[in-house]
């Protein structure tokens, strides 16, 4: 049978036992569980990262709140908790764009088009883009533009949708986004 890499996790938790309220160590343990899809276990340690790092490790806390949302999303049928975690990230560092993107994407997946559009527009106004300590699926402003373009079509703003998609094609964007833009344009033009 496959055995999970307990040794790595073990050494991380042992390190944590020496400094149990250290946000960075809690985050590392959370990441290790997350990597193995043990998302319930990861939740506990991401949450500890947030609670014990709120005054000292803002970037780590911000990422932890988004990772919490992702853990709950992967467990299915926990929409209120997913959105609550993202909202906490928005309110914790309101001048960063990533959590706005997550909120827009959350509503896109629920087909709440006006909410998706609104969050995408609000996120576009956030200016702080300093690197975060882990990947949160946000590659730049074009991610918010994509959410805006998708949702605009559904709320009666076809011209805005088309023009935003066309602008996206002129930008340096990830291949999966380029493919999605092309597919959307093919459908709506």
């Amino acid at each position, binding site marked *: *049978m*496959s*055995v*999970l890499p*307990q040794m790595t*996790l*073990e050494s991380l*938790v*042992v390190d*944590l*036992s*020496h400094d*149990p*309220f250290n946000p960075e160590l809690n985050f590392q343990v959370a990441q290790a*569980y997350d990597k*193995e*899809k*043990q*998302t*319930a*276990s*990861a*939740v*506990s340690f991401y*949450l*500890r990262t*947030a*609670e*014990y790092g*709120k005054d000292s490790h803002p970037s780590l806390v911000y990422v932890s*709140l988004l990772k919490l949302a992702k853990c*709950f999303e992967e*467990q*299915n*049928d*926990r*929409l*209120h*908790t997913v959105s*609550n975690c993202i909202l*906490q990230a928005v309110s914790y560092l309101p001048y960063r764009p990533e959590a706005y993107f997550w909120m827009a994407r959350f509503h896109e997946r629920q087909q709440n088009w006006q909410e998706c559009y609104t969050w995408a527009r609000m996120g576009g106004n956030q200016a702080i883009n300093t690197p975060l300590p882990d990947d949160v699926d946000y590659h730049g402003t074009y991610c918010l533009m994509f959410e805006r373009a998708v949702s605009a079509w559904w709320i009666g703003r076809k011209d805005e949708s088309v023009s935003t998609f066309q602008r996206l094609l002129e930008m340096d964007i990830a291949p999966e986004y380029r493919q999605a833009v092309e597919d959307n344009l093919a459908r709506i033009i």
Partner: protein
Amino acid sequence: MNLVQKAVGQGGKLAPLAIPKTFGGMNPSVFIDPDGDILVNVRVVNYILYHSENEQRFPSRWGPLAYLHPEKDQRLVTENYVVRLNSNLEITDCAKVEMLELHQPIWEFVGLEDARLVYWDDYYLIGVRRDTTNNGVGRMEKSKVSIDKDTWTIKEISRERIEVPSQSYCEKNWMPIVDKPFHFVKWHSPIEVMKAEGTMAQQVALKQGIQPEKDQRGGSQLIRWGSVYIAITHEVDLFKNYLQQKDGIYRHRLCVYDDDLNLVGISPESFSFLDGRIEFCVGAAEYEGDLLVSFGFQDNAAFVLRVPRSIVEDMIAEAL
């Protein structure tokens, strides 16, 4: 200093138990069977304990301490997995316990919860079940299980629900006495020993002994340790924040009992395993002279800790 730090610092070992293809395990119960195998029953649930500690800056929508079940399924469902560990405390075998389908659950807490593993005339998983009435009455249940070590399949083969002589709503966390078949320590203030060979439990002893400062609740199995019995128990501080939202802190102590099950010693200071506010120990076993204890962290993660004998002896001396 937490017990993990102390134990590992003096030659012990910590083993996280991650059950593949689940979101995580909790409240594991370790046991050394007659073949000398290290077995652990790990509880796997469909809910997540959301517990915001410290200043509770990031609570859930339902408060700082909430059981987050699927939003369209209010049940809190438990399944059990039995794993075998090698001497390095790594999982070598893992399987879900196939339970008999004896009834349709009619309460939101579904399944055998916090089951302790023992071997008396056969293997038993002994925990609380609350899904047989429509108001959640809890009774300890003994599930006899067969373990096929060649194919590593674990099946429940019979089940007995333990009724009690007096009226009560929920019986749980009885601590099986490993070398006294069908005997349990039910309470610690005073010690109440129950025997449940069939479906009706009888009180066989009530011991005044020493009175713990705080009510001690089960807990691991009671295991023989030299001339005494020992077990790990827990105590709870329940409180509410200014919004009247519930919260709690669990801490543990080592209890020492004589041959007649009088409580003769208890840790003067409560301890934690990893300094989490909610931790729960439901297993203990002697292994190669050391003590294995198994505990859940925040109801979301499971660990086995090997505690060197010298530390256990020190803890017993402090307790006496």
